[in-house]
């Protein structure tokens, strides 16, 4: 990461009856695309609002380019935001909406008009400049909101679930508009969302929040492959989570006894001994299935319960001994090779190295 633009230093937000954000520290690099993701009520929006000055932290410090921002009024900051509701001014047309920030900064009318039109053109909605915002489509309104926030050429752009009201196909298109813009402008984007597909698709780094705390922070792939705890593994989805006790420790591999069998997992790199509780995950797409028992470690004999077709991939829901559920994600074409008819026994297996132990150090 380059030099941090924003530093959250033990920032905390308490309301009268609950704590929205527990003391939290992280940095946002200049030019970084950071996503903050989590279920509703996890404190992600409060974090963003504190950065915009709409909520004052009750503890800690927020620094922007080294300057403490805790008591700087929202209008004295340059932290424009794209709102979930878009919050376009309904009594102004598209161009006037975009001009608003420049007008507040005292930019002369001809200059701001020119700049606003440039931005509307850049976002491909120049022809709607004089149209009332109520008469624009969802995607067009989205672009007006983006232009309105970017016209002042800020160093950072805050986005609060901006795509949540759009149709699925528009979401994908706006995602590429956003990533392209961010690359071209080279400014920092902080993107709050509850959707992991949005976060993983766009962000350089992702923060996962739960109950006012950071559950994990890292690159999309690291979070996906190496969730640091059960919450993240479940939130990311399509993971098989195993909880058990250590039965045997060797330098490379640890054997864990779980309700559905004994499995080998990579040594977590911290001291473990027989009898310690140990949890690990195996991502659904790393599990193999077949009708013949493979000569490998970590084999579970199970029965197929259901399959969920998702385009090119299929998720199989299997029942392991003891009623535990196992998820396996395989390609549509692979599935055609396997004879799953008639509730046949299937064997799910994975090499020990594919398992990820919670809290493991040093490897992904």
């Amino acid at each position: 990461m380059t030099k941090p633009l924003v530093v959250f230093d033990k920032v905390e937000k308490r309301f009268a009856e609950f704590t929205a954000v527990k003391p939290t520290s992280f940095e946002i690099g200049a030019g970084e695309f950071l996503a903050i993701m989590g279920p509703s009520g996890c404190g992600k929006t409060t974090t963003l609002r504190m950065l915009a000055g709409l909520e004052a932290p009750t503890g800690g410090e927020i620094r922007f380019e080294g300057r403490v921002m805790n008591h700087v009024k929202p209008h004295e900051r340059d932290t424009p935001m794209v709102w979930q509701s878009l919050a376009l001014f309904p009594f102004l047309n598209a161009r006037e909406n975009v001009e608003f920030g420049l007008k507040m900064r005292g930019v002369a009318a001809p200059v701001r008009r020119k700049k606003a039109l440039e931005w509307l053109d850049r976002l491909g909605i120049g022809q709607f400049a004089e149209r009332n915002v109520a008469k624009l489509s969802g995607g067009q309104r989205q672009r007006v909101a983006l232009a309105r926030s970017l016209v002042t050429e800020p160093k950072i752009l805050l986005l609060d679930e901006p795509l949540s009201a759009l149709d699925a196909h528009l979401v994908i298109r706006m995602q590429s508009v956003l990533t392209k813009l961010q690359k071209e402008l080279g400014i920092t984007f902080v993107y709050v969302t509850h959707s992991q597909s949005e976060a993983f698709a766009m962000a350089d780094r992702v923060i996962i929040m739960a109950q006012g705390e950071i559950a994990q922070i890292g690159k999309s792939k690291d979070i996906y492959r190496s969730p640091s705890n059960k919450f993240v593994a479940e939130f990311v989805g399509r993971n098989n989570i195993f909880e058990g006790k250590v039965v045997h420790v060797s330098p490379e591999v640890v054997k864990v006894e779980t309700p559905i069998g004994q499995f080998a997992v990579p040594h977590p790199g911290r001291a473990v001994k027989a009898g310690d509780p140990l949890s690990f995950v195996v991502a659904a797409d790393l599990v193999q299935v077949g009708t013949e028992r493979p000569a490998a470690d970590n084999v579970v004999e199970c029965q197929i319960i259901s399959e969920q077709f998702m385009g090119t991939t299929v998720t199989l829901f299997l029942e392991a001994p003891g009623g535990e559920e196992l998820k396996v994600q395989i390609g549509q074409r692979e599935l055609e090779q396997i004879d799953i008819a008639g509730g046949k026994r299937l064997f799910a297996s994975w090499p020990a190295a594919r398992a990820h132990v919670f809290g493991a150090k040093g490897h992904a």
Partner: protein
Amino acid sequence: MTDRLIKVSLLAYLALVFVFIFTPIVASLVFSFNSDRFPSLPLGSFTLHWYETVLSRPEILEAAKTSLIVAVSTAILSTFIGFCTAYTDYRFNFVGKSAFLALALLPPTIPLIIMALAMLSWLAQIGLSGKVSSIIISHTVLGAPFAMAVIRLRLNDMDPSLEAASWNLGASEWRSMWEVVIPFTKPSIIAALCLTAAVSFDEFAVAWFVSGLNKTVPVVILEILQGNVDPQINAIGTFVFFISMTLIIIAQALLMSQGRKKDASA
């Protein structure tokens, strides 16, 4: 068949209600152009005589001028107070807010005659009785709750992010008031101005108590009526009716266009 019957009878009932409400007004309108001294059928010939006599009486013109000054001042003052109260309700939460709101909406629930007596004695205490300003003060007390109700309705439709968005784009709180809150509520502000002007223009009881020598139009009407029955009353009545109706129709049109916009955006 029964559906149709129900529909027709409901429409007939509605028509009856309107006939009941508007017959006296229409009668007044018709007799204001009738040459006969007394309102009776069959009608005499068409005349503008009663309008001419009304316009030639200085006390009536004086009353019209007073009414106009009072209505305009009341409209501006009530709307300003109503806007401030409605915005306070929209923006802030504080201890005793419901008591504050109940108090703000209280005046229309007080019987006018009680209000008039209370106003008279209070204004006399502070040396303001019998002046034009005393009518304005009293009418503002009556009008402000209406203005507040109308503006509050509009503010309830305002996305709470709208003001925050303008701060976020560099507008101070005062600037946001001018650039966002007032433009957003403008239709309801104009509607409130019209409504409170109409309330003031029509109001008789309180004006009669506190006006002293500065009579408003309704007060003068009563004084003429106390003397004798005179078709001039019909002429004045027609004039007052059209002014009030115009104001109310403007207000209603503005409020309805708000509602339509809301439906369209939802």
